[in-house]
Structure formats: structure tokens, C-alpha cells
């Protein structure tokens, strides 16, 4: 037996999964509250103790960890045009596993500077202009940033023509500037690999220490990445496989949480019909989007706003007043959790289903129709996911859902909204044991084992 421990320091729970990579098999999974304020080791030790009771193993010589504790990797993205470099910067940060606090476009003004200082990002991603393109606004913003009252690692991934100038301006004002390739070197072309790699390096070198997570470094090899990056690795491996094993093919993962809903797609997303022209920014094969207004608990009020309280009341079914009351109670005690049937449980389930539907609709591409004398022409923005055959649910609100199939079906193509390119006839799966992040970590050194375990543990529903 060769035991390996995968740790996920979450914002609420520290989750540990024990794996025997020899067989391979999952030995056990436990969790305990994250203790980032005191000493993050306390929560970890508790989770490991529980795991020892369960498995009889207390020695874990090999340990890998990811983290979204202490707010995750908090980033701010600055671009020029909202639909172009700002969007490119946002996608680069998301695919590096970051939590985006806010995005900014055009010339930064004084109040925006104050806002950035208050938001206290861990990393600032500064872009703007295609290569050989805009200099004026980007240089203006570089000068503005010198006035910012805080400092943090800064990644410059904008117009390469003024790269040195930007670096000089900022370095002279105590900014530590890391230079990456332009996230949009050519109009509408995303190129995020370099920026993403830099962000990851900075996470390893600075952020883990800055967040007080380094205390744990003596007992584990390192906190390797933010949790969402681990999930993205797992998603890629499960879809495409590796030399030692075939993947299951293109897939979509919906991770519903209390505060946000993440959607990961691993799919080319090219048009599946004829007469379709691509429009706008090119998209990433491995794409992550995060919806900050869709979550089953902390973001419940904004989620309710999306569909309207009447709609929620009608689905449960109950009166609008009752829903109001539950929302109020939950605001005071967002951690209340029930698994027994009842109104609250039903509201949880309804919320999860809405989160799935909305988040996947926003993640998927859309078609626009143009009727011309020559016939109908379609323009596609984003990814066509209609041929994606696997939809996987994860996250508490889905794992404990009463009717998981119905919840996940909300991700499916809806004939009432025919221009939203969602999967038309997928199979549905549940990450019942909540192991995706752990498998992403494991995949770095043991891809074969991680793939086998995922195929076993992620069950069709």
C-alpha cells in the first residue's frame, strides 16, 4: 500500500481524502472546520484524526494540498475595452483559479483607485491594448496605479510595445512587476497561458505565505494551487485522459456552492451546424466561469432576484410570505443545514436547480440569427456545448439534493430558448464523494490512478 493524502483547505471546511495509489482506491474522506485565524494546522489535524478512526492510518508521508481558504486567490483585472482586453484579463484570472473581486476598463479614475485599495487584492492583473495597439490609456493607468495606497504582486499582460515603459513606471513606485505575454496580442485572440503560469508562481511564492497558510508547509509538501485550478486539472484529465488511459470525452462540471456557482467546460465548442459564423473573442477549450450572484446560501437573495420570489414560491410550492421569512432566518444563520424533508430543504433544492440552470446558460455560447435574402445566417458567440455528452454535478447543494437528476437536467438545452447552446442529450453524473479537487492534485504525479478513481467514484444518476 502507498498512502497519499490530498487536502483541500476550503473557506469553511478542510477536506482530506486518503488514497492508496497502489491499488488504487479511496481509503476515506473526512472534513473539519478550517482554522485559518488561529493556525490552519489545527483543523487539518482534526480532519486527519477523523480519517485515522475511519481507516486506521495516521501516517501520511506524502501530502498534496490546494486552498481556497482566507478568501481564495483574490484578484482584480484591469483592461481597456470591456468586451475585449478586460474580458480577456478576466478569463485569464478565472482559469488561474482566482476569485475576481472586480474588473476595470478604460482610464482608471481616483475613486476606482480608492476602491481597489479597499478591496485589497492578492494579485493585480493589468492589461490593455493589443500588441502594437493602444498606449495612451494603458500608460495613463500605469501612472494612476503609482498613486494606489496599497502594493501587491502585479502581472502586466498588455500591449507589449510599452511593456518596458510600464515596468519602469511601476517599479519606480515600489511595485513588484511580473511581465507576461499579452492576454490578447491580436484582436479577439485569447492567449492566457503565460499570464496564468505567472499567477500560479506568484500564488506559490507569495500568497501562501501572505495568507498565513505557510505554517502548514512544514507538514505538507506545499499548497500547490488554488482549489479551482485543481478542479480544472481533474476536469481536463477526466475528459481527455492521458497516455495510460482514455478519458470520457467532452464534459461540463457544475459546482454549486453557498456563495458562488462555478462552471467548468472541457470542450472545443466549435459550431455544430452549418451556416454559422464565429463572432467576438475566441474561447478557451478549458473554460471556467464563476457566478457570484448564484449560490444556495450566502447568495440566496441575489439568486432569488434572478427568477423572482413569486417563481420560487410557486415551485416549492408555498406563499411568498413564507419564502420571505425563510430568507430572513437564513440571513441571520446562513450555516443552518438540514437534510430532512421540509420547507428549508426544498428551498435549498430549488435554489440549487436555479443555480445550475442560470450558470450553465451564462457559460454556454449563444446564436444570433440574421435573415438575409440569401437565407438564414447564424452568428455564434462563445462555445457550442450542444454535443457535450457528460454533465457532472458537485458541491454540497447538489450532493445532498433530493432529486439530483432533475437538478442537473436544468443544464440541458431548452427548446424554449433555442439560441442557448447547452448540451442537448447528455448523461448526468454526481461527484458524490466530493473528490474532484483531490483528484486534480493527485493527477500531477499519478494521472493514471486519478483517472481510474474518478471513473469509479463519479456515478451516473
Amino acid at each position, binding site marked *: 500500500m502507498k498512502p497519499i493524502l490530498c487536502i483541500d483547505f476550503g473557506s469553511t471546511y478542510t477536506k482530506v481524502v486518503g488514497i492508496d495509489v497502489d491499488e488504487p482506491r479511496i481509503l476515506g474522506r473526512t472534513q473539519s472546520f478550517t482554522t485559518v485565524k488561529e493556525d490552519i494546522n489545527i483543523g487539518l489535524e482534526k480532519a486527519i484524526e477523523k480519517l485515522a478512526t475511519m481507516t486506521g492510518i495516521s501516517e501520511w508521508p506524502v501530502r498534496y494540498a490546494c486552498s481556497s481558504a482566507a478568501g481564495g486567490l483574490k484578484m482584480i483585472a484591469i483592461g481597456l475595452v470591456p*468586451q475585449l482586453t478586460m474580458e480577456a484579463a478576466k478569463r485569464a484570472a478565472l482559469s488561474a483559479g482566482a476569485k475576481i473581486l472586480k474588473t476595470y476598463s478604460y482610464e482608471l479614475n481616483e475613486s476606482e483607485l480608492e476602491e481597489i485599495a479597499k478591496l485589497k487584492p492578492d494579485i493585480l492583473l493589468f492589461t490593455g491594448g*493589443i500588441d502594437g495597439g*493602444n498606449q*495612451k490609456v494603458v500608460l495613463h493607468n500605469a501612472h494612476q496605479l503609482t498613486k494606489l495606497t496599497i502594493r501587491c504582486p502585479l502581472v502586466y499582460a498588455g500591449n507589449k510595445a510599452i511593456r518596458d515603459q510600464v515596468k519602469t513606471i511601476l517599479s519606480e513606485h515600489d511595485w513588484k512587476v511580473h511581465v507576461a505575454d499579452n492576454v490578447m496580442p491580436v*484582436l479577439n485572440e485569447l492567449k492566457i497561458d503565460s499570464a496564468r503560469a505567472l499567477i500560479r508562481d506568484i500564488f506559490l511564492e507569495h500568497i501562501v505565505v501572505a495568507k498565513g497558510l505557510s505554517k502548514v508547509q512544514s507538514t505538507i509538501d506545499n499548497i500547490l494551487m488554488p482549489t479551482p485550478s485543481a478542479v480544472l486539472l481533474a476536469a481536463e484529465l477526466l475528459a481527455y485522459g492521458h497516455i495510460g488511459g482514455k478519458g470520457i470525452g467532452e464534459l461540463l462540471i457544475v459546482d454549486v456552492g453557498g456563495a458562488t456557482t462555478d462552471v467548468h467546460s472541457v470542450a472545443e465548442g466549435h459550431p455544430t451546424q452549418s451556416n454559422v459564423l464565429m463572432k467576438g473573442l475566441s474561447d478557451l477549450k478549458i473554460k471556467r466561469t464563476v457566478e457570484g450572484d448564484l449560490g444556495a446560501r450566502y447568495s440566496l437573495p441575489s439568486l432569488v432576484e434572478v427568477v423572482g420570489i413569486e417563481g420560487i414560491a410557486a415551485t416549492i410550492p408555498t406563499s411568498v410570505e413564507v419564502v420571505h421569512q425563510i430568507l430572513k432566518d437564513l440571513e441571520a444563520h446562513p450555516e443552518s443545514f438540514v437534510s430532512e424533508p421540509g420547507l428549508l430543504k426544498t428551498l435549498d433544492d430549488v435554489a440549487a436547480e436555479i443555480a445550475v440552470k442560470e450558470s450553465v446558460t451564462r457559460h454556454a455560447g449563444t446564436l444570433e440569427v440574421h435573415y438575409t435574402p440569401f437565407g438564414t445566417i447564424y452568428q455564434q458567440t462563445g462555445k457550442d456545448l450542444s454535443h457535450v455528452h457528460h454533465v457532472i454535478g458537485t458541491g454540497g447543494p447538489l450532493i445532498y439534493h433530493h432529486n439530483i437528476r432533475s437538478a442537473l437536467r436544468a443544464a440541458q438545452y431548452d427548446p424554449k430558448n433555442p439560441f442557448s447552446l447547452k448540451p442537448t442529450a447528455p448523461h448526468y453524473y454526481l461527484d458524490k464523494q466530493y473528490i474532484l479537487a483531490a483528484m486534480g492534485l493527485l493527477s500531477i504525479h499519478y494521472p493514471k490512478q486519478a483517472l481510474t478513481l474518478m471513473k469509479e467514484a463519479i456515478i451516473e444518476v
Partner: protein
Amino acid sequence: MSHTIVLGVIGADVHAVGNKILHYAYTQAGFFVVNLGVMVSQEEFVQAAIESEAKAIVVSSLYGHGEIDCRGLREKCIEAGLENIKLYAGGNLVVGKTPFKEVEEKFIAMGFDRVYPPGTDPKTSVDDINKDLASL
């Protein structure tokens, strides 16, 4: 010096061949061409011009709806801070055989700097662009 220009076929127009030829001709002429291809909206022209700091936008329209598609582009440019950008239009801007003089007047009134009749040699516009941008 190499001028940056944004090029594209406006509206729901899919005629792609002329666009490729213009891209080639302008690149040969030493311009830095940001080519948006076919079916380009006014917003996309404006956004591309900002991001690339272009000095000119060259609009093609081949299918006959050029007038409707081009109306308001100058206003959008002004709104976006591109008040000095040069606007050029060419192709088959309107349906049928309207005298070109009329078409030209309309487009100039809409804020275009130069307008070209069907079948214009790209070289003509290259010379004009060089002349117009030299002073900027």
C-alpha cells in the same frame, strides 16, 4: 511609418472575398491591418479601433444595405473618444444603380471621410489613406 487600420465588412454581409483582397493589399502597402472579417457590427469596429489605437476604419459593404448599416458609426466613434479617426467606405454600398454622386453625398453627410464606387482599385484608397494620415 506603419499606420494601424481596422478593416471589415459591415452588417449581416457575408461577402468574404473582397475583404481578403483588401487585407492583402493594405498589408502589402505597409499598413498594420486589424481585420475583423465579415458580419461586423458598428460596436465591434469601434472597440477594435480603441484597443488597437487605429487611425482609420475601412468599411466594406457589398450586399446593398450599406446605408442602413453605416448610419451612426461616426456618432459612435465620437462617443468613444475617436473623434479624429478617418472613416472610409466602399464596395456596393447601395442596391441598384443610384448615381454614385448621390451615394457619396449621403455617406459624407453621415461622417465618412471618403467613399468609393463599386470596383474601385484598392490602390486608390491606399494612396488616400497615406495622404490623410500623414498629417496626423
